[in-house]
Every structure is written in C-alpha cells, then in structure tokens.
C-alpha cells in the first residue's frame, strides 16, 4: 500500500508518516518512509510518503498513490492527480475542498474534532491516524497505538492515545 500524507509543516504530517511506517514494521511488514526535506517541512508544503508491503520493496518513489491523506488544499491539489483509480482520499473537511464526484472519499474535520475534544489542534493528526487505520487497514490497531505512545513527546502519551482512539471510533462509524 502506497500512502502519501500531505499538508502544512506543523500539522504533524512527517510524524504521521513516520508512525505509520514504524507501526508497519512492528506488524512484521516491510515499510519505507520518506519526507519533505528542509524548510518546507517546517511551515510550508509538506509531505511524507510511506510504502507498506509484505515482500521486499523495490519501487522506492511514489509515482502512484493508493491512499492520499490531505490536510491542506494546496497539498491536495498538488497530488490528487497521482491517485490510483479508485484510490482512497482522506481529507480534513474544514481545510480541503474535494474534487466533485470524488470516489472513495473520506472527509472528516480531524483538526476541529481534536480542538473540540482536547483543546489542541495539533492532535488532529492522531485523530486522522486512528481513522486511517480503520478505513485502510494499513497497519494493526495495536501496533499503531503502541507506536504512537512511544513516539510522542513525554507527558503527552495519554492525550495522543485518546485522540487516536477518537479516530478509531470515527472510522468504525463510517465503516
């Protein structure tokens, strides 16, 4: 499965990609993760690519995307053409206007949900990861949970885990 997380630097895009790849290897699968480099990942356009596979990975750069997670309009518009036919699109519905008649679309206001529930917009990426796990099944729920807990700043594990669980709930409702 080829995933691209994209948005603005500061939305936790790189962390989301890193955690997904890390959870995949925890599951015993192979994964690679790449990310935007330099100043753009710290405020400008930002992306993080993850490839998860059972076997060896030979194609290391994403020409086509199976799951596009877009947290900003510019990023969505930049990469939507690379989506495989009937590939999955997950957007923050407050921040991104999808294409008309977009198939396999998941529009959820992740950032606002995080703000309402935790008073922290930055938790939006964790809500998104919970949702992603359920609708894409890219990694196991358990690996994602443990990887989140061990890769967020000390003292924030509980809040991040709760945000992740909020995402799981939203995903299950949708499914």
């Amino acid at each position, binding site marked *: 499965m080829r995933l691209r997380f994209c948005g603005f630097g500061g939305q936790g895009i790189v962390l989301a990609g*890193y955690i997904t*790849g*890390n959870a995949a*290897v925890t599951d015993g699968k192979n994964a690679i*993760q*790449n990310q935007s*480099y330099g100043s753009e990942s710290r405020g400008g356009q930002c992306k993080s690519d993850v490839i998860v596979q059972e076997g060896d990975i030979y*194609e*290391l*750069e994403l020409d086509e995307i199976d799951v596009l997670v877009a947290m900003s309009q510019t990023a969505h518009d930049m990469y939507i053409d690379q989506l495989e036919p009937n590939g999955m699109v997950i957007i923050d519905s407050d921040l991104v206007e999808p294409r008309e008649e977009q198939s396999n679309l998941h529009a959820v206001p992740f950032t606002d949900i995080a703000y309402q529930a935790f008073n922290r917009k930055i938790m939006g990426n964790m809500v998104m990861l919970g949702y992603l796990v359920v609708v894409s099944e890219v990694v196991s729920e358990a690996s994602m949970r443990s990887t989140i807990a061990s890769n967020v700043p000390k003292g924030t594990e509980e809040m991040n885990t709760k945000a992740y669980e909020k995402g799981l709930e939203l995903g299950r409702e949708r499914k």
Partner: protein
Amino acid sequence: MGEHLDKEHYDLVCKALGPKMQFVQGDVAYAYGALLAGCTYFAGYPITPATETAEALARYLPQIGGTCIQMEDEIASLSAIIGASWTGTKAMTATSGPGFSLMMENLGYAVMSETPCVIVDVQRSGPSTGQPTESSQGDIMQARWGTHGDHEIIALAPSNVQECMDLTIDCFNLAERYRNPVILLTDGDVGHMRERLVIPDREDYEVEFRVPPPEDKEAYVPFEGDENKIPRVANFGLGYHTYVTGLTHDVTGLPATDDADKHTQLVTRLVEKITDKREEIVRVEVEKQEGARIGIISYGITARPAMGAVRILRERGVPVNFMRLISIWPFANRQVAEFAAGLDHILVPEMNLGQVVHPVREAVEGQCPVSCLPKIGGVMHNPQEVSEAVEKIPKGTKGATGGKKGGKKGMKKGGGR
C-alpha cells in the same frame, strides 16, 4: 580500546540506542554502525544530506564516553579523525560531495600514513554544490581517484537501511585490518529513507582491531609490512618512536623523498596490501536465472529498482541475471568477468552519467557489450524504466551485435558514455 573493553562498550551502546528493532534513517544507521564497531570519535561539518549522522553521534557519543566535535570544515574534519586514529581511537567523519571534495588531500595523507579511519560519503547531486537535497551516485570515481598518486581505496555501498549499519561496521573492520581509509559510498536517498533496522547481538558480528606493535621496542620498525604487507605501527602514547609523514618514507618512517627504490617499495606495498586481498574484500550478490542472455549489474540504492526490474522481467518470461556490487573498490574484476560469461549484454543502471560502467567494461574484457542506464537530477530509477531498457537491448547473439564493436553500439543504446 582493546577486546576486553568490547562487551562493556557494546552494552553501553545498546543502552544508548534503545530498542533492538527500530524504524530509522540510513544516516542514523551509519552512526549506529560506527558505535557498534567501537567508534568513539567523530569529527564533521554539517552538510545535507549527511547531517543526521553528525546529529545522531552528537547525541550518542557523549553517552558512551566518546567525543563528537564540529570542525570548521571538512578538511579539518578528516585531519581530526586521522589524529584521533593515531591515538588508537576508532574514528569517523561523514559528509557529502562538496565536503568529500575538500577531503581529497587528507584522504591521500590517510592512505600514505596508513591511518585506519572511516569516511561516510552520502552522495548528492553535483558537481559543486549541485542539488543539495537530491541524491546521486556521482562520487564513485572520485572515491577511487580523487586523491592524487597511486593508491588503493576500499569502498562499500549499502542498498538498504540495515546495510547502512552493517556495512559501516564492516568499514571499520576493513580500516583496522588493512590500515587504510575506508569509504562508505552511500547516497542521499538511502540516507534519508526510514526502514526497519535490527541491532545485532554482540556475538552476531565481528569487531576487528589493528595489529599491535611488537613488544620488543628495539625490534620496532614502524613501516615494515608484515606477511600481509601491513605495518605493525604503534599507536601514539605507547612509548614507541614513530615518525608519521605524507612524504615518501622508508620503513623507519623517515622521509626518503628522492629515493626511487624506496618510493617504489612503499607505494607498491600500499597498493598490494589491498589488491593481494581483493578476494577477501570484494563482496557481490548474484542471482542467476535459467536461459538468461542479459545481465544487470547495479549497486547502492539503484540496486533495488534494478532488482524490481528483474522480477518484472521474470514475470514477462524474460530471464535476466543480476549482480549487486556491495563493495565498489577494490573492484570485483574476477566476479564481473565470470558473470559476463555466456551473456549477450550487460546493463549497468546508476545515478550518474556512467561511472561503474567503466570498471565493469574493463573487467568484462569484451566478452559482451556493456551499457549504462544513466539517471541524474536526483530522481531514482524505477523498476519499469530498468525493465524497459532491458527489453530495448537488441536481440541476438554477441556475433550479431558485433562483440567489442557491439559494445560501442550498446553504449549508445543505453544512453550512457
């Protein structure tokens, strides 16, 4: 450091590094490899795409009692690790193209003074400052011949993050064993890519140390090669008198710059201590298929899309033989010559306009045409373009493509030089 400190060092390193299985960047994996091999000194200057190695070592070296120092430039960085090495410390620096260029003078000094040290070159697109954030395999020939004068160099090229760590350990062992600078010739793509990495148990990897000097200080001849042509030079601080110079020197280490015989003896030994052991140093992986007429030889990150192409072609019923060069220098002459036997054509995909293709062609000695599949600009090959390039190679026997003459034709076909 002696072997008795080994387990203690390993435990300290493991404590600092954390879980045995991690999802890390290649750049961080070089640092892990260095630490596991017993490196306690790093000197470097930050440069994309190698900075994460310095960052990692700045974090971990102080935790294990080592030293990480940011120097004023890359010239000083290599100087510093050469000095550290002479105290018996295992030392490393990491850089990319522009910094590697600056290191060329001291690389020669390390060769001439027989200083064990490791240089990680995370190749980026050049020449000059080029494309700082984009990857390439453009330093292959610079690693071999960038410093002046006759010499040998050892260089290894990792294809995945696990190898980034494993081959760094090997680089240290080779540096210690042959008393030569060893280069990890890696690239920005594998350097910045995250993948699974498993830290080995101590009993699952070798750690080598340079041969100690003879106990009898009277019998000490610092630069006399042993039966393997490797000198038993004493580290500084052990009470032996050693004069170290980049000038041509005799076995005592003292300059002998106008003596043709002594120069010939010295430089021949420096070369032969490596070339005599070519079979020990060279590492390749070969995958053969029944009925293959085409071979692909690749290395580093490019070996992965090349392996992907081999699988695509197999599914299409086109058998292809594949060789991955894990060591680049000294070159795998015998292995490549044997690989070429019976093939109609060899394709060499690489992220440059044609570098490894040259020693391949030299090793093949006209057995079949050899062409390069070049790619520059910072973009990796994808498996499809490699498989398409194989399918475009003219069908037929070596006779039909004309042997050596066909080689030139093949070169044009592959777009390389």
